[in-house]
């Protein structure tokens, strides 16, 4: 417990409150979509009805890549990225590195999308930022991730905005810790029979205290990712490499070797893939080829962390002979403190280091953080009950965003399920979100806050329950088919949605039975 003097405690209470009030609703949007994006892969499989069992890296891919290499201009052989897309299909990006007129490092080349038989089903030429847009079968998960990462604001402003929100969360977490006068006691205090306001204060405090280390971790890693490319790399490159971002990238991520540009056919990628899976026990999440078709070609495979570890695994192969060279750190050539620290930032932020188990914990703690943000805003308003008339707009805005955002996201999921079979999900997923948002805002203007809250809660519950039915009605695989295909995640998401919908309906019914107390409550400074 930290005992600050009275004036400093007062200042920290103000900092905690205002950091939430000024940026709290945007922060809520980022954390809420981040919470859902923890399961982006599973949501993608559920929404698009993925039933393929075998990874693209477990199927023969050598012939298809050789054929692509033969048809791709040699200038794009500098790098080839291989990764899974859709229902275990393969994305292949032949490219070269270039520096844009604004000094930003980029990759330009041809992006091929292959089906499970290795046939080209899509081909785009352009910069990485342009060709890796959402596809019809992943429009929903892409929409979620893009909302979380940049709130759909164009780069670099979107990343800067979410970076600033990360710093605001860092401030709220640290100041929240500093203003706790009875930290240990508050962790376990839930006065269920107290007035609704005090009970809400207790729930805010308990959820906030338990999720404090997590909020700190998320804020720290999140702001790192947002500022890394937008501010960090250009500035450090300016100081250490005279502004040459390519030199920085080469120093950190490159595989230094003596150049040998003599032509040489690429070694068997099937052999490399099988060997990498055998060594790590994990299917590659990504495979990168440097200098395709040259004697000095190198192949790097990237894997999820092994059991009991949080640092991803990276293996290096000789590209010409397909022979294993050595295991290397994800960042740098040798293990180092800085390299390990950067390598674990991803797993710590995404919570994917121990499969579904760690993802579920990250989801739960993300939910607690959303709850803390929302109840914090409401407590701030409660403490200013005398000014509630002038703050009525804020009360209403909290309801519109707090309950409207989940509803609009569910509406976008429904729009995706209907539009995907028609091939227009890229358009209708964000359109569904915008249409639902417009309707919710209009209802927010027309209805009193408490009635709007109840209405939105009911709508969320009904849509949660309806989504599995919409999925089935629009041709998604049923439970027997999902079991047969070894995709229990489809069933798990269906059950999670039905349970969440039922729980929200029950919660709404209980709340209606217990009328809200309007008597003025005096809250303590730590609130």
């Amino acid at each position, binding site marked *: 417990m930290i005992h*600050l003097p009275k004036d*400093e405690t007062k*200042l*920290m209470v103000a*900092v905690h409150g205002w950091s939430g009030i000024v940026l709290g609703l945007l922060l809520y949007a980022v954390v809420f979509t981040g919470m859902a994006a923890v399961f982006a892969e599973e949501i993608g499989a559920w929404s698009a009805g993925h039933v393929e069992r075998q990874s693209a890296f477990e199927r023969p891919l050598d012939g298809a890549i050789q054929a692509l290499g033969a048809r791709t201009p040699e200038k794009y052989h500098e790098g080839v990225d291989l990764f899974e897309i859709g229902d275990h299909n393969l994305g292949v990006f032949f490219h070269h590195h270039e520096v844009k007129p604004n000094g930003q490092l980029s990759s330009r080349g041809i992006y091929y999308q292959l089906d499970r038989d290795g046939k080209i089903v899509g081909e785009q030429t352009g910069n990485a930022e342009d060709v890796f847009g959402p596809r019809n079968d992943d429009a929903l998960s892409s929409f979620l991730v893009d909302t979380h990462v940049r709130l759909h604001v164009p780069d670099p402003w979107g990343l800067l905005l979410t970076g600033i929100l*990360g*710093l605001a969360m*860092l*401030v709220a977490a*640290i*100041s929240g810790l500093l203003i706790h006068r009875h930290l240990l006691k508050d962790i376990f205090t839930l006065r269920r029979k107290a007035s609704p306001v005090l009970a809400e204060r207790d729930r805010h405090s308990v959820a906030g205290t338990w999720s404090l280390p997590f909020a700190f971790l998320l*804020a*720290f890693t999140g*702001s*790192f990712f947002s*500022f*890394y490319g937008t*501010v*960090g*790399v250009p*500035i*450090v490159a*300016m*100081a*250490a490499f*005279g502004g040459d971002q390519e030199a*920085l990238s080469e*120093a*950190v991520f490159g595989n230094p070797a003596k150049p040998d540009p003599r032509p040489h056919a690429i070694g068997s990628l099937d052999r490399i893939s099988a060997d990498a899976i055998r060594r790590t026990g994990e299917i590659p999440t990504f495979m990168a080829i440097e200098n395709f078709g040259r004697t000095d070609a190198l192949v790097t495979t990237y894997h999820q962390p092994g059991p009991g570890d949080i640092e991803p695994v990276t293996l290096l192969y000789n590209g010409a002979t397909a022979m294993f060279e050595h295991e290397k*750190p994800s*960042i*740098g*050539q*040798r*293990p*180092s*403190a*800085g*390299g390990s*620290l*950067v390598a674990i*930032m991803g797993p710590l932020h995404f919570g994917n280091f121990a499969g579904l188990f760690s993802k579920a914990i990250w989801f739960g703690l993300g939910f607690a953080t959303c709850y803390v943000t929302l109840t914090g805003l409401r407590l701030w308003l409660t403490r200013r009950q005398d000014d509630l008339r002038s703050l009525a707009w804020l009360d209403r805005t909290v309801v519109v965003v707090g309950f409207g955002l989940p509803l609009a996201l569910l509406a976008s999921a429904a729009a995706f399920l209907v539009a995907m079979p028609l091939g227009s999900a890229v358009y209708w997923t964000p359109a569904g979100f915008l249409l639902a948002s417009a309707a919710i805002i209009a209802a927010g203007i027309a209805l009193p806050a408490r009635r709007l809250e109840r209405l939105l809660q009911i709508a969320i519950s009904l849509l949660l329950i309806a989504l599995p039915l919409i999925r089935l009605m629009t041709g998604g695989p049923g439970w027997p088919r999902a079991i047969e295909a070894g995709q229990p995640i489809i069933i798990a998401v269906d059950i999670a949605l039905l349970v969440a919908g039922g729980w929200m309906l029950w919660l709404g019914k209980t709340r209606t039975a217990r009328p809200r107390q309007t008597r003025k409550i005096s809250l303590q400074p730590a609130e």
Partner: protein
Amino acid sequence: MALLSQKARKWLRIGLAGPGAVIVAVVTMAGMALWLPAGAANIDNIVLPLVLFPLIWAALFFHACLDRRLGRVALVAIGLFALHAGLVTQKFIAQSAAKESRG
């Protein structure tokens, strides 16, 4: 600092916690790349400032909020700024001189 009015002190503190903390954190991140040890993989001096940037900013922000001695807050911020800005400037001068001698 006793020479300053209460209002001036308040605004000075806001300035140090707000734009001051951002500017000093950015300059510190740039300068750190020039004095941190490179480590076994020769990258620690490049990646550690990138990782530590949010924490440096938070430390400066809370120091500006919580230290009663405003003079000390200003001294730490100006000291960090001067040290790291000086290192970056020196590097630029050395680079320009090397370019001229090559050209």
